[in-house]
């Protein structure tokens, strides 16, 4: 087991170097002189240009610049935003909980609906329910989520007037940040109307972002369940007179869940990407929204730092999923 963890940890290093190389080259590949972009419309005199070039180390060879950049990154220094002049890492830290809250709720939504739907569809194979689940999940899988978000707004905010259109919570509430998750913080504050406001803001983005994982999880659970239900040990369990509920819920589900968990883990990464669109549609103040604004304002340090941080987070999440997978499935752990 230790050996397994060790090799996985070692494998993360080249991936991380790759991500830093990509984000480093990102800024160098952008057409135009970075200093002129920094200076904006004021422009630069030739002497000042040379001075700044030296100050930022841009006159050194590229590989040295990369090593310097790497040094900064390892110390947690990702530079300042060109617009707000705040450290990138601080902005990210401030906005990241909102994205995590949205992504986790979306995943929870997908799992809570997707798992039972997939299990029932598998048990009642070829029934109307099964065909319904498969049809809905294929549609969900093909859904452009930026459009789906707008449809939800038309239906629930405009026609029914149930939910607000944008933001995380109504402006009148000032919630003390404890966990950074507004839903939990507002519940902790004891203010019920604040909690309701946070919940009503969260619900549409959650559905929009959770739809594709929901479709994938339902399909995956169904096919994995079907495979397991055909195994000999299930027939044995049935033959020895266990209740159908026990056979499906305990014997079959335990093994059927393994591939589903992997898919869930791998989808966390895609959720961050989906969050870019969802946060833009619902003006959700998370890192996705921040990143899109950074692009629109040509704030390259934000783009560079944001991609590096999101990439690193996903790398760590994938590693955890890998390790968890090894824990629950000995066959993976011992495979060379």
């Amino acid at each position, binding site marked *: 087991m230790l050996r397994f963890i060790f090799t996985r940890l070692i494998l993360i290093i080249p991936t991380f170097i*790759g991500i830093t190389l990509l984000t480093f080259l990102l800024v160098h590949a*952008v057409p135009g002189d970075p200093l002129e972009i920094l200076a904006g419309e004021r422009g630069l005199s030739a002497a000042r240009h040379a001075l700044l070039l030296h100050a930022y180390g841009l006159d050194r060879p590229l590989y040295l610049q990369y090593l310097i950049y790497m040094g900064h990154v390892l110390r947690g220094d990702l530079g300042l935003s060109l617009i707000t002049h705040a450290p990138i890492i601080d902005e990210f830290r401030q906005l990241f909980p909102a994205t995590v809250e949205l992504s986790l709720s979306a995943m929870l939504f997908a799992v809570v609906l997707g798992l039972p739907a997939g299990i029932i569809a598998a048990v009642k194979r070829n029934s109307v329910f099964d065909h319904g689940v498969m049809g809905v999940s*294929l549609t969900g899988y*093909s859904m*452009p989520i930026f459009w789906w978000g707008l449809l939800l707004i038309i239906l629930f*905010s*405009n026609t029914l007037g149930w939910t607000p259109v944008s933001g995380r919570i109504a402006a009148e509430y000032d919630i003390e940040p404890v966990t950074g998750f507004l839903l939990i913080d507002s519940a902790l504050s004891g203010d019920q109307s604040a909690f309701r406001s946070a919940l009503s803001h969260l619900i549409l983005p959650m559905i929009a972002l959770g739809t594709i994982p929901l479709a994938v999880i339902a399909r995956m659970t169904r096919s994995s369940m079907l495979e397991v239900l055909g195994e000999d040990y299930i027939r044995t369990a049935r033959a020895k007179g266990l209740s159908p509920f026990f056979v499906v819920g305990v014997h079959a589900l335990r093994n059927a869940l393994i591939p589903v968990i992997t898919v869930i883990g791998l989808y966390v990464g895609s959720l961050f990407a989906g969050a870019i*669109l969802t946060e833009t549609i619902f003006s959700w103040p998370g890192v996705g929204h921040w990143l899109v604004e950074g*692009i629109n304002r040509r704030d390259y340090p934000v783009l560079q730092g944001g991609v590096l941080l999101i990439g690193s987070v996903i790398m760590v999440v994938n590693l955890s999923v890998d390790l968890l997978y090894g824990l629950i499935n000995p066959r993976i752990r011992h495979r060379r």
Partner: protein
Amino acid sequence: MAAQNEPLILETTTAPPTPLREFWSYFSDNPGAVGGLVVLFVIVLLAIFADVISPHSPIATHDDAFLKPPFWEEGGTLTYPLGTDAIGRDMLSRIIHGTRYSLLIGSIVVLISLTLGVVIGLTAGFFQGVVGILIMRLMDVILTIPGLLLAIVIVAILGPGLTNAMISVAIVYLPYFVRITRAAVIGELAKDYVTASRVNGASTPRLMFMTVLPNCLAPLIVQATLSFSAGIIDAAALGFLGLGAQPPTPEWGTMLADSREFVLRAWWVVTLPGLAILITVLAGNLMGDGLRDALDPRLKR
């Protein structure tokens, strides 16, 4: 004469079906897949004859008709069957012309990532030393960054526009084609027919492209179909973020971005382009699933 013909007929009926016929019998058993194929065929026809079918020009503005609703709603007319957008362009014509862009985007994305992916994957499979490891590590890095985020980064570097959007989406899908090709190549390399060809003196490029590649095609075809659908969605998402096709191009994602501010006043300008995306992508995915079931030998019988 009749007696002589009889054994001949027997022979033809017992002969194994040709691969194409066998494939078709599996594919046509799947109603979803056939449905997807039919819908895609209709979309191709719409794209070819867009100029003939469209009642108006997709970019002509009509000063007398801003945000007209579809004909079945109050205030709608049959002149603009699906209504008009905020500057008086006919929605139906724009959506019909949008088929051209979506089909073009899907095809070019697949063409780029399939071609590059096959070449890189074959290389990684044939040269499994340092070259192969480096290639696969690079692909892992690309896979670590979520597709849309990577596409956004690449477009940010190259500059917004339809061409750059297609290139960036193609790069995002590259690792899948590389992985599939490499895995298939490694599986095939151990087989006797490759050894036989090698012993016969076939050069490495010949082995790569003429001997091994044709036997790796099935998973690549499936991946190509699914990437076609995904490419359409991702390019539309870039258009929606203002990074893809630029207005007044009647690309469906860009149309959605244009009409976002009218979401609460005019449902049709938002609903219809998205519906067009959904139908196209769904058709592609249905066909892709059918292809996978028909081509994957593990699922047969």
